[in-house]
């Protein structure tokens, strides 16, 4: 009897880092080998798929036998042989390696629109995308719909910009269509610069054609003939897969002159960024494509009127474009019903930090933070207490436990002092110092400030100096008030979004975790025992077995003691790196 067998190996950045390539090679090797030695009639096909979102369990492998899917987690090359022999040849799954209910729970509680194909199709093969209905929406838009019809569907769907600001996409496109010009551009913003966010990377790597298709539809809607995808330098795999996708589209006639046989033409190119966070800002991004320093300009007119090379330009985020083909196929109503009254559809978040299940999470807007962290994320790692969730990256803020029932949408998160942003969610537990976290973000924005306007260039520098003072035990009375004053001024007077939101991490932590700031300033103590200058390491004599593990890992030879007798730490030599704390199996090292 002929069995239809498909093996899918996760090959997103997470999968590759965990050894996905070796696992795939091993499967291919086993298939070739079995073809020679084992006589079974199988159509066996091993393929690579993009990120399926559950990166903490990589490498994930699906084995599909006659449409019955079994998912394995944490697969290493040396485990492949057993899976192959027992499951594929003998038909008995290897139970101890199954991803199990945890994997199903993680996925079942999500609503997948943008990620519906990620981790399922081969991102490097256009036919794999076409097989799941790919390019039907673009064909329909080009051949059967007018620009006005497309704009009206997008408007009715309530889709809002997924890059963070939440501007209604339909309105932007309407303006783009109305402005008359011989040359117009469509740009996809793939400069996902927020640390802690990887939704766009996963879409570009896992389903690049959905982005290209969304752009083709937008080009038709706004009557633009040229497009750019701006991808940040740090995402080489995304660049590679998008380029393959674009090349395949040119061969099929989906891009270039007379696409789908119509009289409409659209050319698409990739521009690779060169590493600057501020280039995620629309005007800075366009300067960067022009080959200049990526500095934002005052918004005297909308990009839809004057953008790239002074020509009308419609710019949207990766995820926004990836939503478009599905809206065209399923209709505006279907999409609008998925979300809240104010914002339609779903949003992809990247859940990371101190949470059990890290990875990509796609949920309808309006879900609560608690549901994301506990129902999908599985709660806090290592049984620790939840302290806060950081949303929106360096432009966002930290939301404390008492606000966990906040609904996730643009307005509610802003109300809580944070922003939705592009979708980064980093969970912080009791071992995280909030002052240190605020300092971390300010270091980031300070370094990435382009320097054009004074409030951002100098204001963030002064705020950072105060935070450095506080975390090194030199905080002064009045520092908190000064931080608030500076923060409010920078917010009110900066030129672009980077400056306007730079103080958010500080202001939100001051609002919800003020006592931690006070402990640093008045008692010179870091309650979470993180800030290096405010903690000491000591060995508890009664607990120390004298095993010497701490002594071996100490980089500064600060630990003294003979075997089997209690050791001690020389405070003069200790550089407080914490290696001994990690190495001790008897919890004999005290960090306060």
């Amino acid at each position, binding site marked *: 009897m002929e069995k239809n067998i498909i093996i899918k190996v996760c090959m997103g*950045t*997470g999968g*590759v*880092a*965990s050894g996905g390539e070796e696992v795939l090679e091993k499967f291919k090797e086993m298939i070739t080998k079995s073809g020679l030695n084992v006589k079974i009639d199988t159509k066996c096909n091993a393929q690579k798929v993009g990120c399926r979102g*559950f*990166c*903490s369990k*990589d490498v994930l492998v699906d084995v599909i036998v006659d449409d019955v899917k079994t998912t394995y987690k944490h697969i290493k090359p040396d485990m492949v042989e057993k899976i192959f022999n027992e499951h594929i040849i003998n038909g008995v799954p290897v139970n101890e390696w199954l991803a199990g209910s945890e994997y199903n729970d993680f996925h079942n509680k999500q609503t997948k629109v943008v990620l519906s194909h990620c981790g399922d199709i081969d991102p490097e093969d256009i036919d794999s995308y076409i097989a799941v209905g790919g390019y039907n929406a673009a064909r329909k838009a080009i051949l059967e719909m007018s620009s006005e019809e497309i704009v009206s569907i997008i408007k009715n769907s309530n889709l809002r910009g997924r890059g963070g600001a939440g501007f209604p996409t339909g309105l932007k496109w309407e303006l783009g269509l109305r402005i008359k010009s011989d040359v117009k551009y469509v740009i996809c913003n793939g400069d*996902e*610069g*927020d*640390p*802690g*966010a*990887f939704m766009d*990377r*996963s879409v570009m790597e896992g389903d690049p054609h959905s982005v290209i298709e969304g752009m083709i539809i937008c080009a038709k809607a706004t009557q633009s003939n040229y497009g750019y995808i701006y991808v940040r*330098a*740090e*995402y080489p795999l995304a660049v590679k897969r998008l380029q393959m996708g674009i090349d395949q589209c040119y061969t099929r006639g989906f891009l270039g002159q007379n696409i789908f046989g119509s009289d409409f033409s659209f050319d698409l190119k990739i521009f*690779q*960024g*060169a*590493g*600057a*966070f501020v280039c995620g800002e629309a005007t800075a991004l366009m300067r*960067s494509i*022009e*080959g*200049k*320093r*990526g*500095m934002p300009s005052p918004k005297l007119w909308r990009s839809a009127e004057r953008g790239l090379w002074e020509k009308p330009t419609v710019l949207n985020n990766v995820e926004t474009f990836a939503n478009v083909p599905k809206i065209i196929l399923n209709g505006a109503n279907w999409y609008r019903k998925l979300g809240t009254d104010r914002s339609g559809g779903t949003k992809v978040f*990247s859940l*990371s*930090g*101190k949470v059990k299940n*890290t*990875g*990509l999470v796609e949920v309808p807007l309006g879900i609560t933070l608690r549901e994301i962290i506990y129902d999908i994320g599985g709660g806090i790692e290592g049984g620790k207490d939840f302290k806060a969730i*950081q949303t929106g*990256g360096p432009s966002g803020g930290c939301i404390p436990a008492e606000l966990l029932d906040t609904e996730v949408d643009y307005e509610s998160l802003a109300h809580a002092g944070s922003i939705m942003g592009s979708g*980064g969610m*980093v969970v*912080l537990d009791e071992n*995280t110092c909030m002052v240190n976290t605020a300092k*971390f*973000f300010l270091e*980031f924005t300070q370094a*990435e400030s*382009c320097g054009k306007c004074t409030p951002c260039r100098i204001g963030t520098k002064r705020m950072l100096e105060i935070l450095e003072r506080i975390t090194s035990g030199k905080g002064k009375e009045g520092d908190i008030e000064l931080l608030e004053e500076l923060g409010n001024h920078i917010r009110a007077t900066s030129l672009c979004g980077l400056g306007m939101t730079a103080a958010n991490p500080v202001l939100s932590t001051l609002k919800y975790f003020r006592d931690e700031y006070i402990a640093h300033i008045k008692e010179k103590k870091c309650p979470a025992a993180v800030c290096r200058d405010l903690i000491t390491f000591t060995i508890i004599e009664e607990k120390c077995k004298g095993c010497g593990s701490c002594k071996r*890992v100490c*980089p*500064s030879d600060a630990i003294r003691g003979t075997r089997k007798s209690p050791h001690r730490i020389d405070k003069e030599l200790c*550089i407080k*790196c*914490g*290696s001994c704390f*990690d190495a001790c199996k008897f919890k004999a090292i005290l960090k306060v």
Partner: protein
Amino acid sequence: MEETLEKILKTYHENSGNIITILQDIEKNFGYIPEEAVNWFAKKLDIPASHFYGVATFYSQFHLKPRGKNIITVCRGTACHVKGSERLINRLCLELDIPEGEETTSDLKFTVEKVNCIGACGIAPVTLINNTVHGRMTIDKLIKEIKKIKSE
């Protein structure tokens, strides 16, 4: 060098490139932006060298000093920070004897640099060793990797 620069100039003309694409090609070929390369292009294209430097110093992808043979990039994204990436950097600099404010060892064998986020937050903390992504990095694992490279 001249030959490589000619090639870069050719791609620039063919693909209607700009200063950023030129610098990206220089960086790809030489591992950094040598002064001679900038001067050569400034003359050929009649663009002041200051324009090249204006762009080169703006973007973190460009380096004006030669870099080490082995490049270790530590991700400083939020998830990696929360999971201890700062300690990885401190320990690396100590282990490789890189003075504060510098990135490269004096023998040009190693460069330790930070990157804002490589977007592999699910397996934080993440380190790139010569462009290979290593997830869930620990100080122990890092030291072993360095020893391996040193002995090669």
